[in-house]
């Protein structure tokens, strides 16, 4: 500082000349002295200059040198003084130039010197300031602190950033920030202060503004948060947010969603956030569910607002979330209530107009509905029934406990085996009358748990009818058993009777045959006419016996079929032979087959059948064809079709009407009147049974006046080749 001041205040050329002369003088003197010595000793020219002159010259130089030195010294002192003055003036300037307040004070509590900033800032003259102890200017509230600080300074302890308020001349207080040091030995304190009033004020204003925003944010009931656009970390969180999430601000700030939510939720939120920032517009999430720390799962409606820098790059993401859990709940509740109301009115309608008695009951077992049918069934009016305990009113004593247990069980477990199903029970009518009912109980969920609706029918009448029907059924059953028994007895009797009848028939038949044979042998002409008569009688008797035998056979077959005793004795049978035997027999018997029988039977139709029974079937059909064929030609055809043999017996006789066709294969049915043709009418029934027992079918196609065609379809069964081939002998 010193040197700068000096350099600034002197002439550089002057100083340079003076220094040069001063430094050169001794050397000049020395040079002259040497010259004198040389001249004295050698040079004549120099010898001619008198010594005195030399001495004088030397003296002059010495004196000059002394003079010059004195001048220099004098000049130096003068310059030093001048610089000192200049320096003082600089400090003074600096002191007063400072916009900060600078002062010196003494240990007695007075300012020793203050700069102009003191005057400017506090408004006092420096004189005023130096006169009064500086503590007088201090704000009473800051007094003690200031005093303590001052005492510390006295003890030699410096002070930095000490703040207090000084009374200014206009009566206001200025906030000053002090830095002080102390020269303990000299008893002087140096201090600088800065007027912080404006800054403080500005700070205060800023703080107020901040508080204002904070207060607003914290009083908004919605969660508000601000995230950094770059890392989506929370920068701001309001009170509602803290309360909702259950975390303190300190726990939230500087963290992102991954620190609070499960990864899948955090992924979702983050991706949404990025979308919002990219989309550059407000984004609304109408409903999102989050897991909070203390409040469980909450439903939020969130708006996310992107905030941008001046250059358009994203800066913040602001989120506003409204907790709509309660709202949603209320809304749902309202919807539910509306629905319940509608349903209630629907149910009421259903109950009122139901044809069944409808009784409603709540979980306490109290009657809540009672329609007019219920009034009729139980005898209690709606007014009497509503609000009453259902069990005591309409359930007989012995069932009340079961009712109560069943209700409790359902309410506990949701299991109700008698619910939603039709059951029969007994009910209690006014006047303690127990009667049978049929009911279905339906549980319907309700705001208060459940409502139960029982659809009830009085089934007293039905029970009577049912009992009656049961009795009838029983009677019928007994009657049927008796009938079946008598049928069985009849069949047994029939079987025995037929057998017994047939036994004497064999010898009678044979005796007649023998008689016929004997008569044929008699050749006497005398007795020819007698013999001829006898022969005729015998033939007729034999025919009747044959018919009797056939009838008995039919009866026996029917009794066997009825008793399920029709057993087949199958063996290898050649159908051609069977048919031929039947035809031969008819032709031999000389039956009126006027136009004959046309045979069209394929060769080698062989199967595994009961030959005897199959023969009787064909016999029966051929007999019928002859009987009802009105003497017109009869056609018999047989051929094989796949695994089946088909036999057709066709006549061109009277035919069978449609109605009779349906029952002709039944027992004791005959298409024509008894008068016209005799017989029991069992033949086709037996034939059908025999064909069916072989696994075949028998069909009829007929038209009245055009004749009938019987068709037998008989499966060819495989016969065992090992079986011997017994000779079939027909009778």
């Amino acid at each position, binding site marked *: 500082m010193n040197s700068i001041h000096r350099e600034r205040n002197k002439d550089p050329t002057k100083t340079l000349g003076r220094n040069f002369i001063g430094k050169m003088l001794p050397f000049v003197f020395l040079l002259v002295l040497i010259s004198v010595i040389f001249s004295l000793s050698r040079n004549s020219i120099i010898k001619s200059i008198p010594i005195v002159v030399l001495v004088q010259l030397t003296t002059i130089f010495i004196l000059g040198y002394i003079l010059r030195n004195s001048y220099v010294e004098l000049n130096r002192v003068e310059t030093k003084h001048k610089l000192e003055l200049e320096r003082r003036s600089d400090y003074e300037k600096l002191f007063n130039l400072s916009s900060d307040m600078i002062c010196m004070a003494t240990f007695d509590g007075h300012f020793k010197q203050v700069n102009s900033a003191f005057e400017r800032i506090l408004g006092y003259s420096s004189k005023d300031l130096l006169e009064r102890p500086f503590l007088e200017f201090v704000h009473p509230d800051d007094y003690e602190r200031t005093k303590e600080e001052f005492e510390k300074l006295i003890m030699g302890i410096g002070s930095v950033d000490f703040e207090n308020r000084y009374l200014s001349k206009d009566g206001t207080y200025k906030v000053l920030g002090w830095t002080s040091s102390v020269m303990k030995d000299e008893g002087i304190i140096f201090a600088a202060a800065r007027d912080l009033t404006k800054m403080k004020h500005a700070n205060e204003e800023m703080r107020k503004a901040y508080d204002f925003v904070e207060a607003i944010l914290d009083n908004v009931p919605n969660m508000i948060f601000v995230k950094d656009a770059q890392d989506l970390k929370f920068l701001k969180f309001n009170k509602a947010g803290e309360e909702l999430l259950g975390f303190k601000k300190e726990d939230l700030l500087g963290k992102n969603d991954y620190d609070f939510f499960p990864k899948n939720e955090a992924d979702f939120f983050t991706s949404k956030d990025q979308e919002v920032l990219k989309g550059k517009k407000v984004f609304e999430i109408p409903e999102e569910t989050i897991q909070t720390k203390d409040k469980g799962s909450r439903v939020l409606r969130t708006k996310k607002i992107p905030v941008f820098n001046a250059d358009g790059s994203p800066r913040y993401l602001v989120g506003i979330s409204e907790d709509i859990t309660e709202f949603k709940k209320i809304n749902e509740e309202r919807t539910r209530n509306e629905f319940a109301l509608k349903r209630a009115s629907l149910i009421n309608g259903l109950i009122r107009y139901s044809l069944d008695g409808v009784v409603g009951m709540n979980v306490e077992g109290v009657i809540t509905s009672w329609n007019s049918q219920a009034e009729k069934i139980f005898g209690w009016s709606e007014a009497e029934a509503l609000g009453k305990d259902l069990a005591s009113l309409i359930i007989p004593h012995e069932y009340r406990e079961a009712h109560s247990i069943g209700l409790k069980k359902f309410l506990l477990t949701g299991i109700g085996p008698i619910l939603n199903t039709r059951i029969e029970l007994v009910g209690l009518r006014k006047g303690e009358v127990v009667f049978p009912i049929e009911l279905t109980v339906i549980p319907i969920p309700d705001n208060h748990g459940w409502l139960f609706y029982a659809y009830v029918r009085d089934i007293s009448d039905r029970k009577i009818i049912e009992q009656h029907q049961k009795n009838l059924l029983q009677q019928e059953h007994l009657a049927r058993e008796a009938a079946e028994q008598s049928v069985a007895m009849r069949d047994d009797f029939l079987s025995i009777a037929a*057998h017994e009848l*047939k*036994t*004497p*028939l*064999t*010898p*009678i*038949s*044979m*005796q007649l*045959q*023998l008689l016929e*044979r*004997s008569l044929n042998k008699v050749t006497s002409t005398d007795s020819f006419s007698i013999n001829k008569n006898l022969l005729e009688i015998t033939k007729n008797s034999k025919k009747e*016996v*044959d018919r009797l*035998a056939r009838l008995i056979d039919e009866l026996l077959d029917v009794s066997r079929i009825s008793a399920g005793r029709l*057993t087949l*004795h199958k*063996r290898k049978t050649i159908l051609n032979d069977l048919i031929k035997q039947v035809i031969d027999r008819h032709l031999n018997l000389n039956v009126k087959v006027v136009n004959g029988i046309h045979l069209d039977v394929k060769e080698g139709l062989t199967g595994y059948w009961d030959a*005897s029974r199959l023969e009787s079937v064909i016999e029966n059909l051929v007999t019928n064809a002859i009987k009802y064929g009105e003497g017109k030609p009869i056609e018999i055809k047989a051929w094989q079709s796949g695994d089946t043999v088909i036999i057709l017996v066709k006549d061109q006789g009277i035919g069978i009407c449609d109605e009779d066709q349906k029952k002709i294969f039944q027992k004791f049915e005959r298409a024509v009147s008894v008068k016209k043709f005799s017989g029991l009418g069992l033949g086709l029934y037996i034939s059908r049974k025999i064909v069916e027992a072989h696994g075949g079918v028998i069909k009829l196609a007929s038209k009245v006046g055009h004749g009938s065609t019987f068709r037998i379809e008989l499966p060819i069964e495989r016969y065992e080749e090992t*079986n*011997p081939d*017994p*000779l*079939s*002998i*027909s*009778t």
Partner: protein
Amino acid sequence: MNSEVNGKRCNSILIVEDEKGIQEILKMALEMEGYQVFTADNGKEGLELLPKMPTPCLILLDLMMPVMNGWEFAEALSKEMTLATIPVVIVTAYGERAESIPSKGVLKKPIDLDALLRIANEWCEQWCNGKRG
């Protein structure tokens, strides 16, 4: 018919039939044709009779009989070497279960006389010729 075998006439027929009426008419019819007819009321009697009579050229066998039925008789017969080859024709009302017996045929009751005589003639001739041959 009426031929002799080893000095004996080859025309014996055995009827095993419990029904007397049938037995008699069968006997009468066959005797009228010249056969020598022996009768037995059941299988047991038949078996007892066989050694005492000329070997028959035909046995007419009823099935349903008391004491010993036709099946049992046939069974016993088949075990006798000398008798096993005699032709047996079954005489039955129903033709049932006759297959189990190795017979030469079945005559269904009521018996057709012509058929009976034809069978008797046929088998006796065959039997007697066979014996002779």
